[in-house]
C-alpha cells in the first residue's frame, strides 16, 4: 500500500465545502478524535469499517469501537506516531501543537494492506489552530487516499485484462476440445484394438502406457470443457449441509485409500441458500482433493462449516461497491484444512491461474482452483488459500448468506 507524504496544503487555503467533499469521497476511513479520545468527526468509509453509522460514532470513545485483533492491526506509517491511540502527545514525543495520527491497517490473508482506518487526534491547546492542523492532516490523508485509489484502479485494470484472457480461454475450449478429443478417440480405440490382438507381455505393457497417456490428455481437455461450461448457474434453494454431506461422500473412498483422517466440524448450523448445487459441490470436492494431494503420506483433513460475519479483507472481500463481499456481511463459510506442507510462497498468487499446478506431471490439470474461483465468483462469493500457522494449508469458500440468498429447500 503506497503512502503519500510531503504535500501539506494549508487547509485554511481551501474552502470548507471542498475539504469536506474530499473527506466524504476519501477511499480511506478517517476518524477525528478530540483531546479526550472521543470521536469528533468521521467519514462514511470509517463508519462502515467500524460497522456503525456516523451518527453512532460521534461522541463515542475510540476504545469502544470494537476493533478486534487480528482483523485490524495498528501499524504506523513512516513519520507517523507509534500505534496506540490512547497515548498522550507527551508519550509520543509529539509537539503539543501537533495532532497525533494513528492508522489501523486492514490486511488480506497474505498480509497485503487493502484499507486504512486513520485516526487523527487533535492536540492539546489553541482550538482554532489545532482544528486547522487536524484538517490539514485530513487533507493529507485524502490525497494519500487518492493515490491509493489510483493504484487500485490500475490493479483493477490488470484484473480486467486477466478476466478477458480467461474468457477467451473459455470460448476457445469447446473448439479445442472437439479438435483434440477426436484424435484421442482414434488413438484410444486403436490402442485398445492392439491390446485385444496382442499376446506379447512387453507389447501389452507399452500399450498400457500409451492408453494412460491418452487418458491423461483427455483429462486436460475435459478440464477445459468444465472450465468453459462454468458460466451458467442453475440457482435453487439448497441446504448447504446436504451439499457438504454429498461432497464428503464423493471423496470418502479416496480418503480411506490414502489413509487420511477426515473430520467435519460444524461450528454453526448451515442455512439453505439459492446456489447451483452441482457447482458448489464441485468446488468442495476440488478443495478436498487438493488438500488430500497435499498430504501424500496421509494426514488430517478438516472440513469446517459455519455462518459468520466477515471481518477480514481478502480477494473480493472489502468495503467497496465493486467488492463481491463486504466486511460485516453474513456469509456461509466452508474451510478445508490439511496437515500437509503448505503452499509455497511463489505459488500463492498463481494458484488460481488456469493451468498453474504444483502437482507432478499427469496429476493435475491446473484448472481445479481456477474453476473453483470462477464458480465462487458467479455466486458473488470468494475462495482463498492461506497457510496455517500450525502447518498445512487452509482453503476457504465464502458464499453470501443474507436474506436475499436464503430460500426454502425444494
Amino acid at each position, binding site marked *: 500500500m503506497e503512502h503519500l507524504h510531503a504535500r501539506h496544503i494549508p487547509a485554511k487555503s481551501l474552502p470548507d465545502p471542498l475539504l469536506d467533499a474530499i473527506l466524504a469521497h476519501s477511499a480511506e476511513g478517517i476518524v477525528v478524535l478530540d483531546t479526550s479520545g472521543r470521536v469528533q468527526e468521521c467519514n462514511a468509509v470509517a463508519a462502515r469499517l467500524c460497522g456503525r453509522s456516523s451518527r453512532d460514532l460521534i461522541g463515542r470513545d475510540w476504545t469502544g469501537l470494537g476493533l478486534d485483533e487480528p482483523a485490524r492491526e495498528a501499524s504506523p506509517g513512516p513519520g507517523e506516531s507509534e500505534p496506540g491511540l490512547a497515548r498522550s502527545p507527551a508519550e509520543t514525543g509529539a509537539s503539543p501543537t501537533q495532532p497525533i495520527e494513528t492508522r489501523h491497517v486492514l490486511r488480506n490473508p497474505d498480509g497485503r494492506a487493502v484499507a486504512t482506518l486513520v485516526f487523527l487526534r487533535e492536540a492539546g491547546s489553541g482550538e482554532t489552530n489545532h482544528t486547522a492542523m487536524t484538517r490539514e492532516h485530513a487533507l493529507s490523508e485524502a490525497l494519500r487516499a487518492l493515490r491509493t485509489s489510483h493504484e487500485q484502479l490500475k490493479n483493477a485494470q490488470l484484473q480486467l485484462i486477466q478476466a478477458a484472457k480467461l474468457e477467451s480461454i473459455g470460448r476457445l475450449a*469447446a473448439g479445442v*476440445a*472437439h479438435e483434440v*478429443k*477426436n484424435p*484421442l*478417440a*482414434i*488413438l*484410444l*480405440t*486403436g490402442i*485398445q*484394438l492392439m491390446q*485385444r*490382438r496382442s499376446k506379447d507381455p512387453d507389447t501389452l505393457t507399452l500399450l498400457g502406457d500409451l492408453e494412460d497417456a*491418452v487418458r491423461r490428455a*483427455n483429462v486436460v481437455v*475435459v478440464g477445459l*470443457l*468444465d472450465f*468453459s*461450461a*462454468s458460466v451458467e448457474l442453475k440457482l435453487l434453494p439448497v441446504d448447504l449441509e446436504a451439499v457438504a454431506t454429498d461432497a464428503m461422500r464423493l471423496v470418502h473412498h479416496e480418503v480411506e485409500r490414502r489413509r487420511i483422517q477426515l473430520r467435519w466440524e460444524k461450528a454453526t448450523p448451515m442455512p439453505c441458500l439459492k446456489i447451483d448445487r*452441482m457447482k458448489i459441490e*464441485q468446488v468442495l470436492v476440488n478443495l478436498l482433493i487438493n488438500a488430500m494431494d497435499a498430504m501424500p503420506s496421509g494426514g488430517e483433513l478438516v472440513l469446517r462449516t459455519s455462518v459468520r460475519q466477515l471481518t477480514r479483507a481478502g480477494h473480493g472481500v472489502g468495503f467497496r461497491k465493486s467488492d463481491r463481499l463486504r466486511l460485516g456481511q453474513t456469509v456461509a463459510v466452508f474451510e478445508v484444512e490439511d496437515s500437509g506442507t503448505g503452499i509455497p510462497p511463489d505459488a500463492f498468487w498463481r494458484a488460481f491461474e488456469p493451468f498453474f499446478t504444483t502437482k507432478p506431471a499427469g496429476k493435475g490439470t491446473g484448472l481445479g482452483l481456477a474453476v473453483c474461483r470462477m464458480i465462487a465468483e458467479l455466486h458473488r462469493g470468494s475462495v482463498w488459500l492461506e497457510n496455517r500457522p500450525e502447518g498445512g494449508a487452509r482453503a476457504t469458500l465464502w458464499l453470501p448468506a443474507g436474506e436475499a440468498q436464503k430460500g426454502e429447500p425444494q
Partner: protein
Amino acid sequence: MSKPRILLVDDEPAFTRVMRTYLEDTGRFEVRMENDPTRVLPAAREFRPHLVLLDVIMPDMDGGEVAAKLKADPGLKDVKVVFLTAIVSKEDVSKHGQVIGGRPFLAKPVDAEALIARVEQELKAA
C-alpha cells in the same frame, strides 16, 4: 442367428476404420461405416442397421439432423441411435444423464468395451 448390424457414422475416416475393426474383431457385430452425413439415409435404407452410432459435430449436417431424418423415415424410425460426441464435459454428462434429446450418448474418447456394453444394452431394449 444373424449378427446385429451397426452403422457407424463419423466424418473422421480414421475413427470409423479403427472402431469398425474393433467391433468386428469381437465377432458379435456386422459393421458398415459412413463418413458423409448426407449419405446416411440411403446407406441405412440399404444396410438396414439395428443401431446407428452417430457423431454429433459433422460438416454439412450434424448428428441431430441425421437422427431426425432417420426418425422421419417409415422404414428406419425404429432404428436405435447412440450419439458419440467430443463436446461434452463431465458436467454435461451428469446433467443430461447421458441422454441428448431423449437419445443416449457417449463421450469421446470412448472406452471400446463401454461402448459395446451400451450398444448391447440398447439392442436388448429394442
